[in-house]
């Protein structure tokens, strides 16, 4: 039996253990959904390069480890050790999880005008919510989504009620403590932004362990009529951490959704980001900055699914690849027959800094309506030598000139980052990643 089969086997036996521990809950509707999801995984198994959606990515090196499926909060974490991962200049709500378990002392929750709490408490308290939303957004035939759904137990639950605007950003942080073994996590998030409500969320996964960590995260987002959502994913985890992120947004009339994915770290990241447009006059933005170095792989798969007329989507992904890093961008824009007057824009620009770095970029536009405006552009290039000389001739040393050019290249990926401190942090991450000490607050 190979390592990947062993992991599948382990998940199967773990699921039985998980069910046994549920006791009374094992008959609940939620658990029915889990069981069905697990069946999907049992039938499909892990994806391989034969799957169209995974043809550029070899999962074997990620799945071969001896991951433990159930990890309790094994080591405490002091705030001072993880402070740098938080936004601290601005007041925020915080949902913090350590080794998959909610950490109440690092968190700041609320139930007053809106719910900013845990997925588990949502399951306990709001049966109507789980019935209406749980597993209703994500695709059902994806193996990793199925695994996550099967083991869905904990994560963030954020529900902003009608006409409410959350007064401060919400930080959702998943830490892995200094575990002495490899671990596989399944965080599950549910975000509901009700009619005319507004919220801004920042999500991070950080491992403090030297062992291999694989996080298979699933997030369902419902952006209801006229709601406004900003969701920023900061992916700058350590060299032993891998992330598979499945996020699907169901977007309703006149809502504005803005998702930023900023990938700088990790050994391996796969982002499956789907925006499913369910009514007219929506606006969707998907922005990304990817800066990778030696040994890193980031695979972005995005979907803008235009089912209804008069909607706008705009996608801008910038990538800089150093060392032997590898990037993948697969951007699908689907315009259904009824989605007339769709305005869809997609752009993916990449710079390769070495001969060993590579990127596969694939725009995938499927347009079945005739009165639409769709544009896309993909570029892969090197640094502009003329620009380098120009800057050097003005006294800017080669290293700084290069960094400034790359920064300028990547910078418009930050166009929709509305939290000043987050912008600053991202600018700093970019500078660090480009190995320069420049004040990038341009």
């Amino acid at each position, binding site marked *: 039996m190979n390592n990947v089969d062993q992991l599948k086997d382990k998940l199967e036996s773990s699921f039985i253990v998980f069910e046994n521990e549920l006791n009374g809950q094992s008959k609940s509707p939620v658990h029915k959904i889990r069981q069905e999801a697990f069946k999907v995984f049992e039938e499909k198994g892990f994806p391989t390069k034969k799957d169209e959606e995974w043809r550029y990515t070899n999962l074997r090196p990620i799945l071969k480890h001896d991951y433990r499926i159930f990890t309790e909060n094994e080591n405490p974490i002091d705030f001072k050790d993880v402070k740098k991962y938080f936004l601290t200049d601005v007041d925020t709500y915080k949902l913090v999880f350590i080794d998959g378990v909610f950490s109440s002392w690092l968190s700041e929750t609320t139930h007053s005008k809106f719910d900013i709490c845990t997925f588990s408490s949502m399951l306990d308290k709001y049966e109507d919510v789980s019935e209406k939303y749980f597993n209703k957004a994500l695709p059902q035939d994806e193996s990793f989504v199925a695994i996550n759904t099967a083991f869905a137990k904990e994560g963030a639950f954020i529900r902003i009620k009608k006409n409410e605007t959350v007064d401060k950003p919400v930080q959702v942080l998943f830490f892995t403590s200094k575990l002495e073994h490899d671990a596989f996590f399944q965080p599950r998030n549910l975000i509901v932004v009700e009619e005319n409500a507004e919220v801004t969320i920042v999500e991070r996964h950080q491992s403090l362990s030297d062992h291999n960590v694989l996080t298979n995260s699933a997030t369902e987002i419902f952006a209801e009529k006229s709601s406004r959502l900003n969701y920023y994913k900061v992916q700058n985890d350590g060299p032993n951490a891998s992330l598979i992120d499945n996020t699907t947004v169901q977007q309703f009339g006149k809502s504005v959704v803005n998702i930023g994915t900023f990938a700088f770290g990790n050994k391996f990241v796969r982002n499956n980001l789907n925006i499913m447009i369910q009514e007219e006059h929506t606006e969707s933005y998907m922005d990304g900055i990817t800066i990778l170095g030696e040994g890193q792989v980031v695979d972005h798969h995005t979907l803008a699914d235009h089912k209804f007329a008069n909607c706008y989507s705009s996608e801008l992904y910038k990538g800089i690849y150093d060392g032997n890093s590898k990037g993948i961008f697969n951007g699908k824009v689907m315009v259904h027959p009824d989605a007339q007057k769709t305005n869809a824009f997609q752009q993916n620009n990449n710079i390769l800094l070495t001969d060993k770095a590579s990127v596969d970029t694939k725009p995938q536009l499927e347009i079945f309506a005739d009165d639409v405006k769709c544009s896309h552009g993909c570029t892969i290039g090197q640094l*502009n*030598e*003329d*620009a380098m*000389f*120009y*800057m*050097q*001739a*003005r*006294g*800017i*040393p*080669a290293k*700084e*000139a290069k960094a*400034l*050019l790359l*920064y*300028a*290249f990547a*910078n*418009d990926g930050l166009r929709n980052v509305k939290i000043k401190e987050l912008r600053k942090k991202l600018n700093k991450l970019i500078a660090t990643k480009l190995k320069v000490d*420049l004040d990038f607050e*341009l």
Partner: protein
Amino acid sequence: MLKVSNLHAGIEGNEILRGINLEVKPGEVHAIMGPNGSGKSTLSAVIAGREDYEVTEGHIDFNHEDIADLAPEERAHKGIFLSFQYPIEIPGVTVTNFLKTSINEMRKAQGLEPMKANEMLKKMREKMELLEMDKGFLSRSLNEGFSGGEKKRNEIFQMAMLEPKLAILDETDSGLDIDALRIVANGVNKLKSPENATIVITHYQRLLEHIVPDFVHVLYKGRIVKSGRKELALELESKGYDWIKEELAV
């Protein structure tokens, strides 16, 4: 200040400069003229340190120091400024931030602290006035979407901010209408001092009506074939470059 002796240089094995000799002293304005393809832009790029060009023979001394092995930024730090014939568009970097980085890197090389923000702003305003530039210009991306005239004005604006010892103006007049030419030339003239020097590279005489040279050199096939006072420029203008070619053929 600048002493170029027997300079041979080329690109990818093709020799373009075939033994240039040129000496520029503080306070002087030199014009280098010549037909297309004579090596004018190559000469300016080689002095500024563009690495694509290979110096195969000869020396470039700047203030008695051989600068042939210095990187472009190191030459800039020593006070050499090249105004580009085709300034590069750099989207995402504003004029202000480019200048800020440039000035502070220059200062760093001289062991100075970064310039204070208000001091820099004041200086920018002053120099912009000199070049009759609009304030809004500072927050635009460097050269992106600039007209030909704006690009050249921006070059001279940067020169005014950086206060170089030696300014090389490569075809600064190309793409300028008569008003812009006057403004740019006026800017250059106001920046002139007994301590700094200027090399004006141009195809036409008209810029030299505004920036009056002390010496005029004619570059042809990689060599300076004729040098003289400003009258040489007028002669070139009336007779054309064929005159030089014929004279050389004799």
